[in-house]
């Protein structure tokens, strides 16, 4: 077969259950090209956040994504504290770190399960998600919610980790640690999984650097970056941990990196629980001065970046968000082309994409098919529309 057939994955993905659209151009089973279309779920979070006051924005950005729902507020409060030069109480830093690492555990287990599902290994899927449950229970115990923890606020955290929470949490960590041993053995030593994942969806170090990938996707390609170590925030400079990297850049390497990160997360939480000092968990902030601040957080999927500018009022005048998947999803263009359809399904999922984080405004037209508008084009569109409306209602400029 030499003619190109289009295999659509999306616009509503049957498995990732998120709105995105991959157009796979295939010859027989081989993928020769791929179109990536995102932007079905644009919610205008940045714009919304400019209409809310600083305390509300933390809850808003929490709702960017359900899986990394503490990374965005964490990055946001980092940005605010950078802006206002706020010294957060020590205990709050530790609590933030614990919550962020618990999130990484549940997110990586979620990915492991999904990856299993994508290669048709439903038992792995169910088992990974079964061991994700205790962590979610711990979240519920600490902050009352399984997702959307609402722990972060500018100047500290909203809830304390009580003494009676610590021993169940430690017990859960032991359980997860044992489960990770099991998963590590089951995944790394399974010949069929190896046959499916080794050498598939390779992103070389060079390519990874050129496509600016972040997080486990970059670390699996041998790029040793991690915001937690390179630009410490929270309590990460007070604990010791390793940043696992692999050189191969294939999906197997990505799996191994994530599994090893589970161990590191468990280690970090244990250290935090032991070292956590007593004291206040927040300080009251009177006002946010004019200025700008940035916050970086190593989300489970990579670096999450928030930029906030304030003009001295009670709301940000600019809030810029860059989620890690925005960088990672684009790299599929390299990784998925050349493989088979079976490879593409798992390759597209291997960067642990989070589409709701990534959404950008896009305009789809019949004549030019699809394109992303620049800011200037949006202004022009809005001016045109204003003119049109003016004409319709017969409005005349009175100057």
């Amino acid at each position, binding site marked *: 077969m030499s003619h190109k*057939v*289009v*295999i659509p994955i999306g616009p509503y993905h*049957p*498995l990732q259950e998120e709105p995105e659209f991959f157009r796979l151009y*295939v010859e*027989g*089973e081989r993928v020769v090209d791929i179109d990536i279309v995102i932007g079905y779920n644009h919610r205008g979070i940045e714009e919304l956040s400019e209409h809310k006051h600083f305390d509300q924005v933390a809850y808003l950005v929490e709702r960017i994504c359900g899986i990394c729902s503490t990374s965005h507020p964490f990055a946001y409060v980092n940005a605010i504290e950078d802006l206002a030069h706020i010294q957060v109480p020590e205990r709050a830093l530790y609590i933030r770190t614990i919550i962020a690492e618990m999130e990484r555990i549940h997110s990586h287990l979620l990915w492991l399960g999904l990856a*299993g*599902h*994508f*290669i*048709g*290994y*439903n*038992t*792995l*899927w*169910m*088992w990974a998600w*079964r061991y994700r449950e205790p962590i979610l229970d711990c979240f519920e115990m600490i902050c009352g919610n399984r997702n959307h923890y609402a722990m972060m606020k500018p100047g500290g955290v909203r809830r304390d980790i009580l003494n009676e929470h610590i021993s169940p949490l430690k017990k859960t960590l032991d359980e997860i640690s044992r489960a990770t041993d099991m998963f590590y053995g089951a995944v790394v030593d*399974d010949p*069929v*999984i190896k*046959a*499916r994942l080794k050498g598939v969806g390779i992103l070389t170090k060079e390519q990874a650097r050129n496509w600016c990938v972040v997080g486990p996707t970059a670390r699996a390609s041998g790029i040793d970056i991690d915001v937690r170590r390179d630009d410490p925030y929270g309590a990460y400079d007070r604990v010791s941990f390793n940043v696992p990297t692999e050189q191969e850049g294939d999906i197997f390497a990505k799996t191994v990196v994530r599994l090893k990160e589970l161990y590191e997360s468990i280690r970090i939480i244990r250290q935090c629980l032991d070292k956590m000092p007593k004291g206040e968990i927040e300080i009251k902030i009177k006002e946010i001065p004019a200025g700008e601040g940035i916050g970086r957080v190593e989300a489970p999927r990579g670096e999450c970046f928030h930029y906030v500018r304030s003009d001295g009022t009670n709301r940000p005048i600019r809030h810029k968000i860059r989620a890690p998947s925005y960088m990672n999803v684009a790299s599929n263009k390299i990784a998925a082309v050349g493989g*088979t*359809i*079976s*490879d*593409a*399904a798992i390759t597209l999922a291997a960067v642990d994409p989070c589409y709701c984080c990534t959404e950008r405004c896009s305009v789809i037209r019949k004549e030019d098919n699809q394109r992303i508008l620049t800011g200037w084009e949006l202004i022009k569109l809005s001016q045109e529309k204003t003119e049109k409306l003016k004409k319709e209602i017969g409005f005349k400029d009175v100057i």
Partner: protein
Amino acid sequence: MKLVFNYLVFPGFLFSAVVGLFSGWFDRKLTARIQWRKGPPWYQNFLDILKLFSKEVIIPTQAKFTFFISPFVGLCAVVIVSTMLGRVLLDPSESFIGDLIVLVYLLVIPAIALILGASSSGNPLAAVGASREMKLILGYELPFILSILTLIIKTGAIKLEAILNHQMVYGSHIASFSGVIAFLVTLLCIQAKLGAVPFDISEAEQEIMAGTLIEYSGPLLALFKLTRAILLYIMPLFLTILFIGKDISFKFLFLKYIGLITLIILLKNTNPRLKIEQAIKFFWGPVSFLACVSVILALRGW
């Protein structure tokens, strides 16, 4: 009249459909338990089929006539197989010379029906699924036929009755070297024939969204589901007759059936899906090699 009863009720269509749907439930329940889930109640598969039959028939505009006819073809083939197997088990003298070959032929037909239906549906994903199914047939038929050849050599006849009689006298085929190898090979081929993981490549919901079945809905889909259910009943039964047919009293037959089906479900739940090239390599490489070894061993009388 008796023949009609045989084909339509017992041990043909109705009986095998009921047993097959029960086996399907057993599969789902056991899978669920393996995966820390609760699993459906025993009547779930019956409800599913009933629901599908109550829906309207939707035929895509690009579809050809074969789209409509192929589910019936597949179902007829498995019903004939189940009737033949059942009649032989009830009364071995019902067997006729060459029935083994007929069975081997009939067992390919469900897969071919699937390919026919899928490729006439006009859907690109179904086309990919059909091409995968076709490659898979090419893969597993060779070792399957070779392992059946092993039995023919050992028994010296192409007749189910002869195979059963031989095992009654000399013990089950699985007790010999060539028999155990041929058994393993057949088990793997059956996994592929059932479209179970790791060989559910033609349906691969995560890649091509049910592939071959993507355009089917309602009663036509129900027919395919019934075909699959009956296959799940006849495949272990066929395997029992061929390899562990020493004692075919009802009690032992039932135990063997449950044992085999459990084995199939376990295989299914402890493996990820292979890619189509890998599956073909697997069948043409190690599996065919094993099948050849079993044929040679059988020729030498082991």
